[in-house]
């Protein structure tokens, strides 16, 4: 560790105080809140792996088949590196079975290769890899847009009603109640039918307008407790306006709740879009989405199961990644979260301590200061006090 207590020959009796100071230093080491959160987050292995996997999925999805969005007349189109795109209909090969093979030859497989259609083809011959990549793009766009819109609305409504209370709280919360009572899937179905042909972006915006309710409730609860804290009064005495107090003092302290809820919301948005598209109310042909792929091919379940595997795998992978990241963030933002050391770490620390204690005894006896030394040295030391041959101090611990 960085702050090893040092024991100088002329300083033996004070070593306890040094260690005590180090303990204190360790707890208040000059770390900003952000650094602490980052460090804790990176300790969460699941979250870290999920981040890498999610980044890989996003990059692959957007680079392989290229972008193609049109939103109220604005077209964005870029080419991708994959040979097909999701609208082309190449000739079916091999009954449309996936050409992907991951079993190496020396294990009796066909060797590692991708082939022309690694995920297979559907009954008309569309390349499933291209289709799934396009579907993944749509899902990710929906996830991000729903996340941004719902988090902004939910945070502002929650913060305003929690902070001001009174009539503003009543009005906003009753409004929230009304939105909550309408099932999102019904709203999505009605709106999806109307704007589904506008593409995933329009659908995402509408879904975002209905998905903020849970977050608003949580933020309101958090703000209700934060507004009673003294630093809010202190800011008010300093002359801060309500807007400044909300955005500068209260919301940064609620960031944990907001971020965590946002990730959960994003995972839910993906599943919602999938459900809507499966029901036929989401993204419309000729465009596609993960849910729509499943829905389109439900008749082929027995004959071409890969039509379900791949979109299913990606739905699960994205939702899982987001949930893991959310879990990691929750842990990182919770200040009460303290890692419990493993039995091995405890044993190692004990060994270290005994080593230190022994070194201390050694130094103490050499300095002729045995009296004081014996008093301050914790456990395990006294039985070695007789031992003043220097070589014994470096004897390794078993």
């Amino acid at each position, binding site marked *: 560790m960085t702050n090893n207590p040092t024991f100088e020959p002329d300083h033996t009796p004070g070593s306890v105080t040094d260690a005590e100071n180090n303990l204190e230093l360790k707890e208040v080491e000059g770390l900003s809140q952000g650094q602490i959160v980052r460090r804790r987050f990176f300790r969460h292995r699941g979250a870290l792996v999920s981040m890498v996997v999610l980044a890989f999925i996003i990059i692959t999805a957007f680079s392989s088949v290229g972008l193609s969005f049109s939103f109220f007349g604005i077209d964005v189109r870029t080419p991708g590196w994959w040979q097909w795109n999701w609208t082309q209909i190449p000739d079916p090969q091999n009954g449309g079975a996936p050409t992907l093979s991951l079993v190496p030859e020396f294990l009796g497989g066909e060797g590692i290769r991708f082939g022309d259609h690694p995920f297979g083809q559907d009954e008309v011959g569309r390349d499933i890899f291209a289709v799934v990549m396009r579907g993944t793009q749509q899902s990710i766009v929906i996830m991000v847009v729903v996340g941004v819109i719902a988090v902004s609305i939910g945070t502002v409504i929650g913060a305003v009603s929690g902070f001001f209370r009174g009539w503003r709280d009543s009005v906003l919360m009753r409004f929230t109640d009304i939105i909550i009572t309408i099932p999102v899937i019904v709203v999505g179905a009605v709106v999806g039918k109307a704007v589904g042909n506008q593409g995933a972006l329009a659908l995402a915006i509408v879904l975002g307008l209905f998905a903020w309710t849970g977050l608003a409730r949580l933020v309101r609860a958090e703000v209700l407790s934060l507004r009673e804290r003294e630093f809010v009064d*202190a800011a008010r005495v300093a002359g*801060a306006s309500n807007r400044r107090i909300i955005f500068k003092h209260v919301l940064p302290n609620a960031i944990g709740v907001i971020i965590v809820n946002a990730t959960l919301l994003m995972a839910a948005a993906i599943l919602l879009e999938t459900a809507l598209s499966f029901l036929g109310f989401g993204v419309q042909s000729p465009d596609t989405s993960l849910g729509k792929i499943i829905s389109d091919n439900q008749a082929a379940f027995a004959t071409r199961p890969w039509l379900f595997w791949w979109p299913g795998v990606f739905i699960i992978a994205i939702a899982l990644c987001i949930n893991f990241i959310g879990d990691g963030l929750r842990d990182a933002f919770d200040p009460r979260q303290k890692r419990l*050391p493993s039995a091995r*770490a405890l044993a*190692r620390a004990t060994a*270290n301590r005994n080593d230190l204690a022994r070194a201390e005894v050694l130094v103490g006896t050499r300095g002729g200061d045995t009296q004081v030394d014996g008093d301050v*040295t*914790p456990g395990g030391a006294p039985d070695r006090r007789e031992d003043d041959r220097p070589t014994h101090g470096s004897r390794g611990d078993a």
Partner: protein
Amino acid sequence: MSTTTPTAVETVLEVENLGVDFWVDGEYYPAAVGLDYRVKRGEVLAIVGESGSGKSSSSMALLGLLPPTARITGSIKLLGREIANLDNRELRKVRGNQIAVIFQEPMTALNPVYTIGFQMVETLRTHFDMTPKQAKERAIELLEKVEMPDPATAFNKYPHQLSGGQRQRAMIAQSISCDPVLLIADEPTTALDVTVQAEILELLRSLRTRLDSAIVLITHDMGVVADLADSIMVMKNGEAVEQGAALDIFQRPQHPYTQSLLASVPHLGLEVSEAGDARPAPSTAATPVLSFQDVAIEYPKRGRVPAFRAADEINLDVYPGEIVGLVGESGSGKTTLGRAAVGLLPIKSGTLISAGIDISAGTTKELKALRRKAGIVFQDPGSSLNPRMPIGESIGEPLLLAGEAEGKELDKRVQELLTSVELPTSYRNRYPHELSGGQRQRVGIARALSLAPELLIADEPTSALDVSVQARFLDLLQELQQKLQFACLFISHDLAVVDMLAHRIAVMHRGRLVEQGTRDEILRSPKEAYTQRLIAAVPLPDPIAQRERRESRRAGL
């Protein structure tokens, strides 16, 4: 010094070379080292020290109530039996049955969803083979023993229905229910008002003789120690720096730390012997900076809860350059007054002039003008600084919002302020959690003084600090007050602190000012019965004087 029981030769607790280490990031750090002490039946051992000195963790080690990251070394013998590193099942038999604990905060130590009777019966029935009816009888008997008013009714009450003192009594009744041989009292009176504290100390004193058990008292309050302890162990940085009989330690402290600890305890009535009044009160002829004229403050009704009048008929003036101490028990409305003075609470009726501005109407414009002229230091330094803001930004906020300074200029002002409260300027980028309690409270002052206000409200600024830190903090406040000459309303429940600082004192009781006058008038010759009671209840950090006072108080009752 006090009641030595005739049979008391049996040693209840024998601690030898006790060490407690905590695991932090792969290494053990000692929290307590090489403690040796023994406690006999009927004896009270006080463990004194500042927060972080290891007094609590070493005592929790006796019960095995430490987190799994802790490691205990050495030996703990209870009635000759080794209990260090017993397994959990064995320990549970010891806990409650032979060792009991009285916690600091009875509201959090008692379960709020059960009646206190239920909780006592539960304890009794876990340890003894009793029918519910027997247990109930025994519980009521115990409540009588701790002098709970109307024990049979109290049995069926929930913790929130009792007052703080009654809750602590219930807590004590529960902990003595199994006739423990050892009672650990962890800051038993810290959360209580002085008058209630005096009652609880009285109770502990009588229980000690009636139960004949050993008591380990953990506290930082020298007054409590003087009142109760037979022997004292002073701890610093995990080591016992001094041990001995109470009287010896108070009269002939050997270790420099003990001496400084005793010196930093504010001593009520110490200055009376010094040249009359060394602090000439500033002229009261000028216009007051803060003036309450027949003010009433109400918390508005909410739902079915009726409006609560927290302060009524308040008439109080604070003149320029003067420190006025406002004292009273918790719930007496003193904080309410302080918050009203800086415009955080609207007043119901009367006239309130703060820093020359009439804020009775509480309009936004008036309040905005007031912000530049009045500052407040809050009670809890942990909660009064925004945990997500570097302290430099917190200090600079009033300056920035008042449009006084910006950018480089602001940086300079912040550094000046940090220097004036004796903090290194490099601290400006630190977050509140990286500072100690005393340092945070300095930041609080720096912020309150950033606009050089005419009026400073200090709302119990030292109640969360250790004595020695408190002493340094009060010195700093006094120094700054003399330099900047602001008027100050100093709110405190601690009469000794007010005695050190204030020119004039106002006493508050149940939302009304019962008495006000100069420091000497109030503290040396109080007229109102309530003030007299308040002063008599303050424990003196001197065993002999405290005993005299206790006897005179008992005679007076």
